[in-house]
Each structure stands twice: as C-alpha cells, then as structure tokens.
C-alpha cells in the first residue's frame, strides 16, 4: 500500500501531541487518509513518547513500525528512534540534538534559522514540522494555516508570530535533494468540504459520538486511562446535547449511577478500564438481576492491578464473560475498527434495551487512543429501539416488572412518569419485584432471565469471515484486526480472517458453521492465554490449533503481524 509514516518523538510536555494534531489535521484537509498511533508513558513531563502519523491515498486501519521520516524533538529521541528509520528515510532534528552522530539520513537544523524569538528546544516541534512539510513538498502556508488555527488565542500574539515566522524561514532551508513529495495523490472522498467529508477521530471519540447518537442521557465514570476521554467528550458536549455526565467518587458509584439513570427512564452508560470493571463486579450482577439495561465501556489495558497504565492488552474478555457472582445474562461486544466504535457503540444501547441486560462494550487502549480518518458517520444508520414497555394503566397500579415471558424479557415502565409503580429488587424476587426465596419462584425467575441468552445469541451475527476459503483461519477481535488484515493481504491473502464483534453470548451452531472446513484455527490476540480460543472451546466446543499472543503492551503493527504470519508459514507454532 502507498503510504508514508512520520514518527514524532520527544519528552512529555515537548509538543509531540500538538505536532501530531497539526500534522494529522493538515493531512486530513489535504485529502489524505490518516492513521495515528500513540506510544506514551504514564507521566506528565519527561520520558520518551512518540506518535506515528501514517498517511496514504487508501483507507488505513493499522500502524506501521518503519518510519519514512523521524522528527526527533530531543537528542534521546534521535538515539532511540533512528533504528526504525527506513534506509532511504530522513530524520530531522535541531543542531543541538544531533550530538556527534554522522548518520547520512540526519538533517540537523542550525539554531540560527528562524527569528531571534524562536530559539531553543521549545520551538523544535514547529520547526521540524516545517522541515517535514518542505521535505514532502507541501506549501509552508498550509502548515502556517494549521498552526494559526490551533494556537490562535492559546498563544500570546508575539509568540504565535514567532512560530509563523519560523515556519516560513525553515521551509527555505530544505534543499531540493531532500524533497520527496509523496508519489501518490489523495483519492477524492465521497463528499467535498474542507476534510473531504472525512473525520479524524480516536476510537474513544467514535465511541462517545456513538453513545450520544444513541440518545444516551446519563454517563458516569471515574478517571482511568484509556476511558477518561469519553468522560471528557461527553461531559463537554453534555450542556449542548442534554447529557448529564458525572465524575463519580469511584467506579462502583459510576455503575450504580448508570443503573439509577436507566431505571428512571434514560439510556445510561458508564465506563472505565479493567481495574474499574473489577470494582464494578457486584453492581454488574445488580443490573443483571434487576434487569436494568445499561452499557458498560471497558477500555482494556495491560493488567492485572495497575499493570501498565498507558499500554494496551486484550485480556478482559473472559473476566467480563464471567464477571460478578451468580448466573445472569449479559452481552459482550467489541469494535474491530473506528466504524464499529461508532455504530456498534450506538447499537449497544439497543441490545441493552431489547434484552434488559448489562452490555459490555469492550475496546482496547491501542484502538481507543489511535486516531484514523473515517467517512463522516451516517446518522441515518443509527437505529434507536427502546424495547418493550407496558401499556399505560388507567390508574395507579403495581407493574409486574418481572412478568414471566417466553423471551425472558418483561415490559418495563418509567417510574414517576407513568401510573405504574415500578419495583426493582437486588434479591431474588417475584413478578412484582418483591423479595422472596420461594423455590418454585426462584426456578421460574432464574429460568426467565437465563432464557435471554439463547435469544440474544440467536439475534447476534456470527463472526465475519474475510478472505474466505483459505486453508487456515486467523481469529481476531478489537485492534488486532486492522494490522492482521493488512499483513494477510500483503502476503497474497494466504489466510482467512474471522472477525468477532459479538463475543458473548455465542450461538454455537452459527460459529461452528462459520469456522467449518478450515484445517487450522489460530487466535491472534493481545494476551498470553488466548481468551477468545478458550471462550470458543467452552461455549462452542471448538479446538484451536494454536494461539499467537502478544502481551508486550504495544500496539500490534503491520510488521508485528507479518512476523506472526511468518512464524505460521514456517510450520510453527
């Protein structure tokens, strides 16, 4: 695939993030497709962080490791990142960061370039960006426009001026031999507009937009990477969209807030990462036994306990399938890309409402934090179905909130807005929501609730099989899907790929049919144990041939995926 990968590296607080924002937005507006991956440490200042900004004329769904350009904002970054620069690539840094290095690919900018007011490491980001733009053959005015757009009002006028002057001065420094304009032109998008009708969104942005589109009115969480940005996005949009968002005192409160909001008649959700999900466990069962629809977002990160706060993993699948004591129905779904992150997040509320269950929307840090260009989401595709409600009675009456039905779903009502009195209970209860431990009632109510599992499984699509008909099938979910598909296609599509979005409950027949005929089934997941494989063994009686696990906490790149495929083709594992 035609692409260029730009790595911007430096310490926290040096402007790596802003430089990435500027570059990403500029590329988007030039009409390119973009994928931006983050690699950062859990600290506010110092350390070593980098982001990879990859762009192409075709849609991108994965990061790559190899850099075509390196913008090294400090000396440490030159040392740490030069090894991943392509032989024909270029590295830009300030003179002071070059040290004694003699690498032919290194282009050091003398500090004398640019105005007096723009000297030192603080201006490294904007100056190196300007070198990059010149190197790519992009006009400096385009960069100046982006810098202005992002910093106008945020920087003092004289500082903004220094930045803009630096952009112009540095652009002239690049020599003709260093200009490598992309060999590909952006393909026109379906619609016009400044960004060719596209959005540059992170996975979490997409989830937030999806939740808002679904009509969520209550959201609660407790800050934890990588779920906090949903709190931020929905909180900021709340006044305009009519969403009440709360930073709860802990994750237990966050889920109980969502349950309360849902009981009172509003689509409600909460979010956290694995540790917060562990705290929520008892309340997940509360949503289960009270049959309260609620969407619970899990941004998975490397665990257990605090694990690695800014590193990715896919190790919460089995914990979520089993989370909380006792038995009750729940659903687990997961977005395989930034389109799912929007459309499936909205659909999560329909599942919750249709079956009156807790629905886990499971993302991973890699995908939650990565940004990519997508075609503007089509809001007419968002379906809102609130499920079963009881017809309004003539006068005040007690609702049989847990009426035994064939599907297991009982009509609900909104307390205080209807004549129904609605009683929900955390104990085992009778049809009217009153506690009882009567044995026949227990069997009736438990069987009613558990019947929802079969109904949900039947209503869920099975795995999507891409490149069907190959001898071997790779099974994946979440952020591993993108790089895996790209690697498979680079290898001439030698493997089929099964993408799992609906992870629980599974319809064994449907899954077995989709996976029939392959000689090897191989899970590719960012975990040690192969949790999807274990789930398929447990619920569908399927045996995996092997598991390709990666648990170093880093995003799976296309190169990583190629290496994994290589290990398969070599007859191993």
């Amino acid at each position: 695939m035609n692409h260029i990968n730009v790595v911007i590296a430096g310490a926290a607080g040096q402007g790596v993030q802003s430089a990435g924002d500027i570059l990403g937005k500029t590329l988007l507006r030039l009409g390119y497709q973009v994928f931006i991956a983050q690699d950062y440490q859990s600290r506010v200042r110092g350390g070593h962080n980098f982001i990879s900004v990859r762009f192409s004329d075709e849609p991108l769904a994965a990061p790559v490791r190899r850099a075509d350009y390196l913008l090294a904002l400090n000396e440490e970054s030159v040392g740490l990142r030069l090894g991943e620069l392509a032989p024909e690539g270029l590295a830009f840094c300030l003179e002071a960061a070059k040290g004694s290095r003699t690498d032919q690919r290194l282009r050091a900018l003398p500090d004398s370039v640019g105005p007096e007011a723009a000297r030192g490491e603080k201006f490294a980001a904007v100056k190196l960006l300007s070198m990059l733009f010149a190197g790519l053959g992009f006009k400096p005015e385009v960069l100046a426009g982006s810098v202005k757009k992002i910093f106008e009002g945020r920087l003092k006028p004289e500082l903004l001026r220094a930045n803009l002057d630096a952009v112009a001065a540095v652009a002239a420094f690049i020599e003709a031999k260093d200009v490598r304009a992309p060999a590909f032109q952006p393909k026109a998008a379906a619609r016009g507009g400044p960004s060719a009708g596209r959005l540059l969104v992170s996975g979490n942005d997409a989830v937030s937009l999806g939740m808002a589109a679904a009509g969520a009115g209550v959201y609660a969480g407790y800050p934890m990477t990588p779920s906090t940005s949903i709190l931020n996005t929905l909180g900021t949009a709340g006044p305009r969209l009519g969403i009440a968002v709360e930073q709860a005192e802990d994750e237990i409160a966050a889920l109980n807030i969502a349950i309360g909001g849902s009981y009172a008649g509003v689509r409600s959700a909460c979010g956290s990462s694995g540790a917060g999900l562990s705290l929520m466990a008892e309340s997940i069962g509360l949503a289960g036994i009270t049959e309260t629809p609620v969407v619970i977002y899990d941004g998975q990160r490397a665990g257990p306990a605090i694990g690695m706060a800014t590193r990715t993993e896919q190790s919460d699948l089995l914990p979520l399938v089993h989370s909380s004591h006792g038995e009750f129905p729940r659903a687990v779904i997961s977005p395989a890309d930034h389109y799912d992150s929007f459309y499936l997040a909205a659909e999560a509320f329909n599942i919750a409402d249709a079956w009156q269950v807790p629905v886990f929307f499971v993302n991973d840090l890699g995908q939650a934090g990565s940004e990519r260009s997508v075609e503007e989401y089509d809001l007419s595709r968002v379906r809102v179905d609130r499920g079963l409600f009881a017809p309004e009675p003539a006068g005040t009456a007690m609702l049989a909130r847990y009426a035994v039905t064939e599907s297991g779903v009982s009509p609900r009502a909104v307390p205080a807005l209807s004549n129904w009195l609605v009683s929900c209970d955390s104990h085992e209860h009778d049809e009217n929501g009153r506690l009882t431990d009567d044995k026949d009632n227990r069997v009736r109510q438990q069987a009613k609730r558990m019947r929802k599992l079969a109904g949900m499984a039947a209503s869920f699509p099975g795995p999507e099989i891409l490149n069907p008909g190959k001898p071997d099938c790779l099974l994946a979910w979440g952020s591993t899907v993108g790089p895996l598909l790209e690697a498979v296609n680079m290898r001439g599509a030698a493997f089929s790929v099964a993408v799992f979005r609906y992870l629980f409950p599974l319809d064994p027949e449907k899954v077995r049919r989709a996976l029939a005929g392959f000689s090897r089934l191989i899970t590719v997941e960012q975990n040690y144990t192969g949790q999807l494989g274990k789930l398929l063994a447990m619920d569908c009686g399927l045996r995996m041939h092997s598991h390709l696990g990666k648990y170093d906490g880093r995003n799976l790149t296309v190169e990583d995926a190629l290496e994994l495929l290589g290990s398969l083709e070599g007859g191993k594992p």
Partner: protein
Amino acid sequence: MTCNYDFHQPQWCPGCGNFDLLVCVKDALCGANLGPRDFIMVTGIGQASKLGFSVKCNLFNGLHGRALPLATGVNMANHKVKLISVSGDGDYYAEGGNHFIHAARRNLNIAVFAGDNRVYGLTKGQASPTASPEFTTPIHPEGVGGKPLNPALLALASGATFVARSFTGNKEELTGLMKQAIAHRGFALVDIMSPCITFNKTNTFGWFKQRAKPVGPEHDASSFDAAVSLVSREQETIPTGLLYKADRPVYSDRFSALKGEALARLAPAYSPDRVKPLFEKYK
C-alpha cells in the same frame, strides 16, 4: 389527602424500632402530599432497608451500601421526582461511607432516613460504625474500641444542608423531621436512633429514651458553627431535632441540561442528528 401506602407486612422482631420508623415514614409521606407514584424510594440492604417493601411506591432496592449513587443516577435522569432513601447505619456509614460523603457534598436532593441501631441487625449482631467502644460481640469480645462514627458531624463536614437526629420513641418529633426533610431541597439526613431489641442489649429503648433530648429554642440551626459545636460536644444526653439547615444549590443545579424538563421526558425523543454539530471538531 387520604393516604394508603399499605403494602407487604414487615417481618421484623416484635418491638423493633423499624415498626415505628415505618409508621413515621408513611405519616410523613402523607403529610408531604406525596402519593405512591409521586416519589421514588431507594433502599440498600439491611433490616431497615426492608422497610421499602412495606410502602406502596416506586422502589429500587439496590445493593448493600449503594443506594445513594443509584439515587444520584435517578436524579440525573429525573431531577423533578422526590427521592427518599431508607437504610441502616452499616449500609450508609460503613459499606456506603464513601457514597454518603459524596452525595452530601453534591447536595443531592434526597431525604435520607438512617435507622441507626448501632448494630448490624440483618447479619445478626456485629458492631456497626456507630457502636460504642465498650460494645462486645463474638468478633469483638474485648470491645469494639476506637471512637464511634458521628453521623451528624460526618454529614455536616460532608456538606449536607439538612441534618437532624431523632428517636423512634418520639414519633411526633420524628414524623415532623421527616416531613421537613422531604420538603427540604437538598441532602437531608435524619439519623434515627432505633433500638434493635434482639442484637443490641446495650443501646436499648430505655437507653435511647434516657438520653434523647430535643434541642431547645436557643439552638440556632442556621449556624454551621453552632451545629458542629452541638453535635461534637461529648455529653450524657443526645440532642434531637433539627440541628442544621441551609440553602445551597442542589446537585442538579450544576447541569444546564437539568434546568427544565426531566431528561427522562426529553431523552426518549433525542434524534441521532443532534450529534452532527460535534463532527465539526474532527474535520
């Protein structure tokens, strides 16, 4: 209005303070003109919490300690509906301690009736956070030790805007305070001394009766300092009545989204299209 909240027969021990609590709750609801569908009751787990099943109303009986965050969610979805919570001292001050503090800090608009028997009734006699240091149980054969938690002081320190104390043996006072708590706009705690005749042989009806003394007219309930000083003074009697009352914006006031109709009325009509303006930021 004529009131009938009669529902399921409660199952407490004969002589349990919860019976009086139930009578007072019903009288206060009636006095506050709240019909069964006009309010939502949110309870936790414990003997006191079971009171919810004996009142005909909208009820969410949640987890041990978690009634208040659940009520917070109800309030976000429907800030117009009156919220009433009933539970025990273990529920509010131990398992749910963190939630109690933060619900008070937010000034959630809710009337909280804490049946404070200084013991865990439902689980048969363990010490509660309000138990006295000398109180013995099989777990604490040499006494609980420490210092009993002071619910009124905790509520004041946490930002509650209505703090009262009462005793199930003084139904008139209790009903009056409950009515005021329901009428109050904000976090209203009534900590209710209530005997557990089976598991607390120390803090008996007589013990409470001897000590519960209504505050005199000299107490200025609008003064935070006076309230703190009154409830933190170590003395033989336990002052009952309204200890503190203030006006402060309630929780829902911080949301412009909760200025008008309840979200529970508005949100079901939300169209996905309302998200469109948010797309601009990503272009």
